[in-house]
């Protein structure tokens, strides 16, 4: 385990340094070197943002339910759940902050919000969620016993339940965020909230399972209840995701005149077919096989890691195809410029900044584990 951790620490350092270079480029050149433009205005960073906030919701919902149901490991690890959820949320917000044309004006979202915008509504939900996390954290620190319900004020459990409602609501709203855009037929679907929520649950449970594999708590073996709950949650969520995705695509392909047909064909057979077939389907099926077998921590950890990583493709495959077609035929040819193209290809700068975003997320989780459990790279947490 220690050797694996050291290897991962090395990889993290490389990613972080490369990410810092990307961040520097982003800061000095603004958005000149990005691949997105005016016809595909959202790219990789927006996908990471939705993945981050989805994981935040998923971690909280799954971890808190585990805590409330007193599952071993989770019942006395609530702060880890809260911290990881907050770390994923902060990571997502960094991603979207870097995507803004005027990042330093982001506070306007709170100073002059327009609540007819799902973006403003989501932003406020995130803040309420982070405040709920902080309150739960404080109440838990002051708790009299480790078994829920625990605190003297009697507000911890109600707040956790409220947090679960939020943790279900805002990942679903991420789907609504796209669903309300009538201009894009591929997005304008009532299935999107369900897809986004399922992806969030799969991603959140995967991150929790991954952390668990690195926290070797003695009584919990891969056959234990907590591992079992997490792996079956992931398996269930991934299967449901695939079913919903099949539904969305097959409906579009069934009708010869569907406006959503071209985006689906782009996903399946366009230049980025491999994102769907290899990363999403291939990665997902491999992860399912590993989780299904689930014989060792390494197997479970790898499966969970694959889902947490490859499910960013679920965001990309909604985001990019939805923007890749104009409702006004002939618009692309009317005025030529790389920023006025319906073809999106992430640039090196975007990938470097993505490394920064990802490594910040991992770094935040690590700092939390270290402070809350004493976990270190060189001396992994003693078996408990």
């Amino acid at each position, binding site marked *: 385990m220690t050797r694996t951790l050291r290897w991962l620490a090395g990889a993290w350092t490389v990613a972080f340094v490369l990410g810092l270079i990307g961040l520097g480029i982003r800061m000095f050149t603004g958005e000149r070197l990005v691949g997105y433009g005016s016809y595909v205005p959202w790219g990789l960073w927006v996908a990471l943002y939705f993945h981050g906030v989805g994981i935040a919701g998923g971690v909280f919902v799954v971890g808190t339910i585990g805590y409330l149901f007193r599952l071993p490991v989770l019942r006395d690890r609530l702060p880890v759940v809260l911290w990881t959820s907050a770390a994923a949320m902060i990571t997502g917000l960094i991603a979207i902050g870097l995507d803004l044309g005027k990042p330093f004006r982001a506070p306007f979202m709170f100073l002059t919000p327009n609540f007819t915008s799902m973006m403003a509504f989501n932003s*406020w939900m995130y803040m309420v969620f982070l405040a709920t996390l902080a309150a739960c954290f404080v109440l838990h620190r002051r708790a009299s016993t*480790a078994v829920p319900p625990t605190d003297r004020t009697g507000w911890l459990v109600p707040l956790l339940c409220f947090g679960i409602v939020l943790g279900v609501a805002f990942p679903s709203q991420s789907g609504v965020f796209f669903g309300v855009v009538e201009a894009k037929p591929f997005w304008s679907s009532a299935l999107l909230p369900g897809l986004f929520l399922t992806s969030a649950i799969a991603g959140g449970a995967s991150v929790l399972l991954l952390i668990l594999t690195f926290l070797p708590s003695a009584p919990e073996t891969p056959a234990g209840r907590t591992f079992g709950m997490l792996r079956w949650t992931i398996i269930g969520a991934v299967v449901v995701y695939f079913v919903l995705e099949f539904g969305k695509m097959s409906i579009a392909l069934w009708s010869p005149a569907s406006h959503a047909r071209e985006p689906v064909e782009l996903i399946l057979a366009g230049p980025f077919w491999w994102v769907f077939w290899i990363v999403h389907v291939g990665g997902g099926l491999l992860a399912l096989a590993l989780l299904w077998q689930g014989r060792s921590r390494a197997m479970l950890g790898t499966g969970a890691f694959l889902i947490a990583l490859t499910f960013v493709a679920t965001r990309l495959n909604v985001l990019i195809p939805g923007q890749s077609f104009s409702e*006004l035929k*002939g618009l692309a040819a*009317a005025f030529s410029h790389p920023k*006025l193209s319906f073809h999106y290809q992430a640039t090196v700068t975007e990938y470097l900044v993505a490394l920064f975003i990802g490594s910040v997320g991992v770094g935040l989780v690590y700092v939390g584990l270290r402070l809350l459990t004493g976990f270190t790279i060189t001396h992994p947490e003693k078996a408990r």
Partner: protein
Amino acid sequence: MRSGAEIPPEAETTGVELSRRDLIRAAALTAVGAVAGVGTVAVSRSSDGGPSPRGADSVRRLPVLETVPNDAGADPLIRMQAELRLAMAKPIEERRWSMVIDTRKCVGCHACTVACIAENKLPPGVVYRPVLEEEFGVFPNVQRRFFPRPCMQCDEPPCVPVCPVSATWKRPDGITIIDYDKCIGCRYCISACPYGARTSDFGLNYTDDTPEAQPYESLPNHEYGKSWSREDHGSPVGNARKCHFCLHRLEVGLLPQCVSTCIGRATIFGDSNDPDSLVSEQLRQPNQLKLLEEKGTKPNVVYLV
């Protein structure tokens, strides 16, 4: 954090025990959240747009061009210019700017596109009025027609409600505008516009990758009647941008630049609240077409075919 040793052995099998008090408190928190959410959305939906000048503040007394006769044989530009003066003499709530583009007269010269770029100092990658081409028929019975596409100044603009910071709104005279000082550059409005009428200013310059920036690139533009300098990432760099019917020109009695430049007199502009205006006459023609009307946007730009 508490150690697992404090956990009673039966805890592992007892499962959750939510007391009635827990449930009531959780439900109360959720209800407060839901009411706050619904309330804020309802208040936002009922607000009446942005801080545009209204009433007497919006009336402009513009000079009459007495040396140019506006008689029956006058150029449409002269007539539209005179009608513009009349419209500006009314409060903003009483005018309604509309545009009619006669595709039978448009020759696809792109002069309007270029004039707009010059007027608004548009950088590379930003365009307010591209000209779309449509080819129909089968050889040898082929025909082409052109659709200049400004902002449609929709009556139900999907670009407005999505803005998270109220940086864009529809004025009482029908023009949808962007406040460059408020826009955070999230590009949600760009996604929401079915016409692709909004573009983002990514801070590019025509002389990027050349030895020297040219002076014209540092000239300010005067959209919305203010002076905007793009130097040092100043707005509108990082903002969404769009056609605004040359609001800054209307304010001083000038027609939108694309209208003045149209060599075929194919673009007719004016106050559709004035039944005698040229644009109202054109709007009464039966051979009309509105782009993507099925989206429910109620565009104020109409094409004659």
